[in-house]
C-alpha cells in the first residue's frame, strides 16, 4: 500500500483548473520532492491530500484511507507543516506545542525537548512576539515530534536561517532512517537535491516529470567545458551540440545528443583542460521551464 496515492485527481476552482488528472504515487519510506513553479498546484495537492478541499474528480488516499471521506483516520498517521505558520497569537510556543501534541495523540515528548534545543526555540514567548521564522520552528517541532508515518511539508524551511535549515535536513535524514515517509514541496532546490530519493515536477496541474535525480539528469544537457592551448578552434557543427565561448581560450559545449562525435573531434585538438559537470536540480528545473517541454524521461 502506498503512503500517498492519487488517481486522476482533479480540482477546479470556478473557471480555473488547478489540478489536471494528477496520478501521484509515493511509497512508504520514500522521501519525495515535489517541485513546480508558482501556481502549478502544489499547495492545492496538499490541501486535497489533507481533506481541506474536495476533489472535483478522482480520488486521493493516504495509506489506503480516502482523504476526503475519512480524514480523521488518515491524519492519525500524518503530520503537516504549512508554508506560513497559522497559529494562535496569544498562546506561547510551549502552550502551542502542548496543544498540537495533545490533539495529535502520540507525541514523543522527549524528542520534542530535543528538537526545541536543536532549533533553539524560546518556548515561553507568545506567538505574536515571535518572528515568522520562529513561528515556523514551532510548526516544525510539533510535526517532527509526532514521529508520524507521513510528513507532508509545504515549504517547511521558509523563513529559517541556514543553520536551522541544516538542523532541518538532519531531522529529515533521521526520519528517513526510521522509515518515515516524507513529501517535501519546496523551492529550495539544494535542499531537495540533498534529501530526496525521488522528485516530481508539477506544471499547470499535472506531473510533467518524475524520477530519481539520475533519471532526470538525462533530460538536461550535459555540459563540457574545454580549455584549449592557444585560441579555440572552429569546429564543424554537430547535431545536438551547442557551443558558446567560455573566456579567452575556452569553449562550453552543451550536448543533448550523443557525446561520441564531439569527443572524436576534440581528440584531434590541443586540449589543455576538460571538465564535465552533471546538471544540478536547479538546471534541470530551469531547463524544463525555459524550454517548456518534456513529458517523462526517455
Amino acid at each position, binding site marked *: 500500500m502506498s503512503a500517498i496515492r492519487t488517481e486522476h485527481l482533479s480540482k477546479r476552482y470556478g473557471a480555473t483548473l488547478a489540478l489536471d488528472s494528477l496520478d501521484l504515487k509515493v511509497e512508504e519510506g520514500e522521501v519525495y520532492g515535489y517541485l513546480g513553479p508558482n501556481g502549478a498546484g502544489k499547495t492545492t495537492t496538499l490541501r486535497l491530500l489533507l481533506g481541506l478541499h474536495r476533489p472535483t474528480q478522482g480520488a486521493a488516499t493516504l495509506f489506503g484511507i480516502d482523504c476526503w471521506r475519512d480524514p*480523521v483516520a488518515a491524519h492519525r498517521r500524518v503530520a*503537516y507543516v504549512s508554508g506560513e505558520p497559522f497559529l494562535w497569537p496569544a498562546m*506561547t510556543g*510551549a*502552550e502551542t506545542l502542548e496543544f498540537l501534541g*495533545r*490533539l495529535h495523540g502520540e507525541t514523543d515528548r522527549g524528542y520534542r525537548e530535543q528538537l526545541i534545543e536543536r532549533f533553539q526555540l524560546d518556548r515561553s*514567548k507568545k506567538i505574536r512576539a515571535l518572528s515568522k521564522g520562529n513561528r515556523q520552528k514551532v510548526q516544525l517541532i510539533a510535526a517532527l515530534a509526532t514521529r508520524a508515518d507521513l510528513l*507532508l511539508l509545504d515549504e517547511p524551511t521558509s523563513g529559517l536561517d541556514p543553520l536551522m535549515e541544516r538542523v532541518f535536513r538532519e531531522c529529515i535524514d533521521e526520519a528517513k532512517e526510521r522509515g518515515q515517509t516524507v513529501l517535501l514541496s519546496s523551492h529550495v532546490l539544494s535542499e531537495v537535491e540533498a534529501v530526496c530519493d525521488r522528485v516530481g515536477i508539477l506544471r499547470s496541474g499535472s506531473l510533467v516529470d518524475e524520477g530519481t535525480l539520475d533519471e532526470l539528469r538525462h533530460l538536461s544537457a550535459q555540459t563540457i567545458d574545454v580549455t584549449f592551448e592557444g585560441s579555440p578552434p572552429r569546429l564543424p557543427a554537430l547535431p545536438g551540440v551547442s557551443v558558446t565561448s567560455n573566456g579567452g581560450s575556452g569553449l562550453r559545449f552543451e550536448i543533448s545528443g550523443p557525446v561520441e562525435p564531439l569527443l572524436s573531434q576534440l581528440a584531434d585538438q590541443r586540449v589543455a583542460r576538460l571538465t564535465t559537470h552533471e546538471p544540478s536540480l536547479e538546471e534541470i528545473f530551469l531547463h524544463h521551464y525555459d524550454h517548456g517541454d518534456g513529458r517523462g524521461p526517455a
Partner: protein
Amino acid sequence: MDARVRTIAFVYAFAVYSYIQPAGFRSTYPTLADRIAFAHSFAGNAAIRLFYGFPYDPVTIGGYSAWRVGGTLAIAAAVFGVLAAVRALRADEDSGRMELVLANPIARRTAFSSSLVAIALGIALLWAAMTVGYVAGGLPVGGSAYLALATALVAAVFVGIGAITSQLAPTRRIALELGSAFVAASLLLRVIADTAGGAGWLRWATPLGWAEEMRPFTGAHPVVLLLPLALSTALLFTAARIARGRDLGTGILQARDTTSPRTRLLSSPTAQALRSERSSLIAWGGCFAVFGVILGTVATSVSSAGITPQVRRQLAKLGSGSIVSPRGYIALIFIFFVLAVCLFVCAQIAAARQEESEERLETLLALPVGRLRWLGGRILLGAEAALILSLIAGLFTWAGTSSQNVHIPLWQMLEAGSNCLPAALLFLGLSSLSYALVPRVSTGISYGLVMVAFLWYLVGAIAGVPKWLVEATPFAHIGLVPTHAFQTGAALVMVAIGAVAIAAALAVFKHRDLTGA
C-alpha cells in the same frame, strides 16, 4: 464586515428610524390632549427614561423625536464611531497591510488623516440620513439638522475614543473591547443621570448626556455643541501624536509577551476555544449582570398613575399587556436581553469564522480533528454560554427587584431569562447555516438577520402594520414573562428550526472547501 457595507447599513437604519418615530407619533397621538396625557404617563416614568433619556418636551413632535430617536441613535452613533475608528486605524495595521502602505513615500500623518477623512464622510452621511428622515416625518428643517448634528457629534467623540484605544491597545480586538467599554460606561452614566433623582448633573460627564443637553426642539442650547467638538478634536490630536511615536503593530499598553505555560483547557479544540473566548464571555456576563440589577431596581419605580386607555392600547400592541407594574415593565424590557443573547451567539459563530479566515482552522484540521467535532464544539459552546447569560439576566434582575422589596419569585425571573434561549437557538442555527453556506459574508448576514427581525418587531408593532406581517418575526412570538405565559408552542418551533438549521450547517460544512479571507 466591509466598512462600506457597515456604513450603508447604519445610514439606512438611521434614516428609517428618524422618519418612523415622528411620523408614528403624529398618527398615534394626533391631538395635543393626547400628547399631554402621553407626557404625563409614559414619559414621566423613570423606567422609561432608562432607555430613552430625559424627555424635555415630549408634547411636541420635535421634543418627542429628540427624546426617543435622539436617545437611541446616540448609542448607535457611539458604536459606529468606535467601530469605524478601530477598523480604519488598527485593522490594517494588525493585518500587515499598513506596512505596505507606509513603505511608500506616505507619511504616517497622511495615512492617519486620510483614514479620518473617510470616517468623517461616513458621519456626514449619517447626519444627512437623519435630517432627511426627520424632515420627511414632518419636522422643520432647522430643528432636524440640529438634532441630527447632536447625534452625529456623539459619533465624532467616539471616533476620537476609538482612535485613542487603537494607539493604546496591543491588538485590534482589545482596542475594540476598550472602545466598547467606554460606550457602555457613557451609557451607564446617562442612565443614572436620567433615572436617579438629583443626579442630573452626571449628564455633563458623558457625551451621550451632552446630546441631550443640546435640547433640540426644546429650547436649543447650541453652545453645548462646543463640548463634543472640543473633545473629539483633542482626542484625535492626541491619537495622532501617539501614532507618530508608536511602533507599527503594537500598542502603548503592552500585554505580556512571555509567560510560563498554562496548560489547562488545551486538550480539545473546544476547550481551547473556551480559553480564547474566556475574557469576552466574562465581559458579556458582567454587562448582563450590571444591567440586570439596574433594570430590577428601576422597574420598581414604575407606577400606573395617569396612564390613559389610549396609551395602554399602544403598549398592548407590543404585547406586554400591562407595562404599568414592575412585572410588566420587566417583561417588556427583557426583550432587549433576548436581543443581546441573539447577538451574542452571532458573535460566537463570527469567532469561529475568524479561525477559518485566519487559516488557523487549516492547522487544526490537518490534525486528527474532525470538522463536525470542531464546529459542533463551537456551536455547543455558544449554546451553553447563551444559557448562562440567560440565567444571569434573570438572576440579577431578581436581585435588583428584591433589593427594593418588590417581590417577584426567583423562578419567574429565571423563566423570563430562559425566554432568551429559544430565540438564541434559532439564531445560532441560522448563523451556523449561513457560515456553512456562504462563509465570507456570513458574519454580516447573521447580525443583519437578528437586527432586521428585531426592528421588524419593534417598528411593526408600533406602526400599526397588520398583525400577520408582524408575526413573521420570531421576536413577536416570545411570551413576555413574567406577565404573560411562556409561549411553549412558539418556543418549541424556534428550537426545532434552530436544531434543523444546526444539523444542516454541520452537513454542509462537512462538504465544502475551507475558504480563507
